[in-house]
């Protein structure tokens, strides 16, 4: 992380943040320790490992797979931090015929309770502007070139529904355990801009 200013000299933004935090704490609206806990939960407990567990389970357990597509909020809750997932979470399935990708053109809507807070690129004007107009070009920039016969389905999250892409299980993973499979499933696969790949053994 490159510091763009002297560590001992806070930036204008840092000063504004300190000021508003001090005021809101002194007003009695928030306890500073509660803020620490919110930051800590997002830095340590809420992340893409939650979604990855669900996808891996769906790959090995047909009943779970059915439950995930019927009600993703309920199906993922057992894997979530404190067992909590917001409602109206929808799992969408990649197939040889259709590849799914998720965007929020209007702001930054994202299933953060199962994938963690969104990466900067997901919130960037470049992704938000282009995903709905030139999805294949955007995917190519992530190194994913789709076959011409595979349709692209873009889900613009314009309301309080959230989407989780369930990628196809990669070839060469027969007999793998759920834990091993979960390791293959990165955040970007569940946004729909990458595919899980099996590392080549050296």
């Amino acid at each position: 992380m490159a510091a763009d200013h002297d560590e001992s000299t806070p930036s204008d933004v840092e000063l504004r943040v300190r000021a508003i935090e001090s005021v809101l704490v002194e007003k009695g609206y928030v306890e500073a320790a509660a803020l620490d806990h919110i930051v800590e939960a997002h830095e340590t407990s809420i992340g893409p490992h939650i979604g990855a567990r669900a996808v891996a389970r769906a790959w090995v357990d047909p009943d779970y797979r059915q439950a995930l597509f019927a009600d993703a909020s309920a199906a993922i809750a057992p894997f979530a931090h404190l067992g909590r997932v917001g409602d109206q979470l929808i799992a969408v399935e990649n197939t040889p015929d259709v590849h799914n990708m998720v965007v929020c053109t209007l702001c930054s809507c994202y299933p953060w309770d199962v994938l963690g807070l969104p990466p900067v690129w997901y919130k960037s004007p470049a992704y938000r502007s282009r995903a709905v107009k030139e999805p294949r070009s955007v995917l190519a920039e992530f190194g994913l070139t789709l076959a011409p016969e595979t349709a692209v389905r873009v889900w613009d999250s314009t309301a309080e529904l959230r989407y989780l892409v369930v990628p196809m299980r990669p070839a060469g993973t027969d007999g793998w355990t759920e834990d091993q499979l979960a390791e293959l499933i990165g955040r970007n696969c569940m946004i729909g801009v990458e595919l899980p790949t099996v590392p080549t053994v050296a």
Partner: protein
Amino acid sequence: MDGVHDLGGMDGYGPVRAERDEPVFHHPWEGRVYALNTAMSARGVWNIDIGRFAIESQPPRVYTTSSYYELWLAKLEKLVLQYHLAEADELERGHADVPGPEPRFTTADVAGVLARGSFVRSAESGPRFAAGDRVRARNIHPRSHTRLPRYVRNHVGVVERVHDPNVFPDSVVRGDGPQPQWLYTVRFDGEELWGDDAEPDMVVSVNAFEPYLESA
């Protein structure tokens, strides 16, 4: 509003640049801004769409040159002042003159804000559209908040799925309360949206509230 936040289909923003092994927060102040917004939202004085409108209504020059969490800071400052939870001179000095009203957000409240809130409500009547119906996104341009992106307005799509009624963002931000509306997934073919310039074999869907749609 037809603001700079409504980015779908805009050109000129360049390639998508993904960072390897990106941290959750790039600077400690980003985490504080995120946590302050989360804790203050829990008071229920404003809702998520009032927060979004506070960002969308930043001057375009500010919106386009601010980082994500800089916009969240601007949103929090704006809402705290708008709802008189603090005064401008207090924010300037970084000290509160007088304590504010209850409640206080404490560590006991943290678990309650670590999942997304629910916006599902009951509606007074049944849904107007069913899966398979052809619908046109209305050509609306409200000056206030809306969740119908410009790139689908006046275009024809197909209802794919009917969801539960949800709190209607446009109404909440106007100050008219939740007025729950049926919510649909509506899919549009690439050619319908982008004509001959569409990439091959692409479909885009949005979630559209019933007042955004008319039969086609």
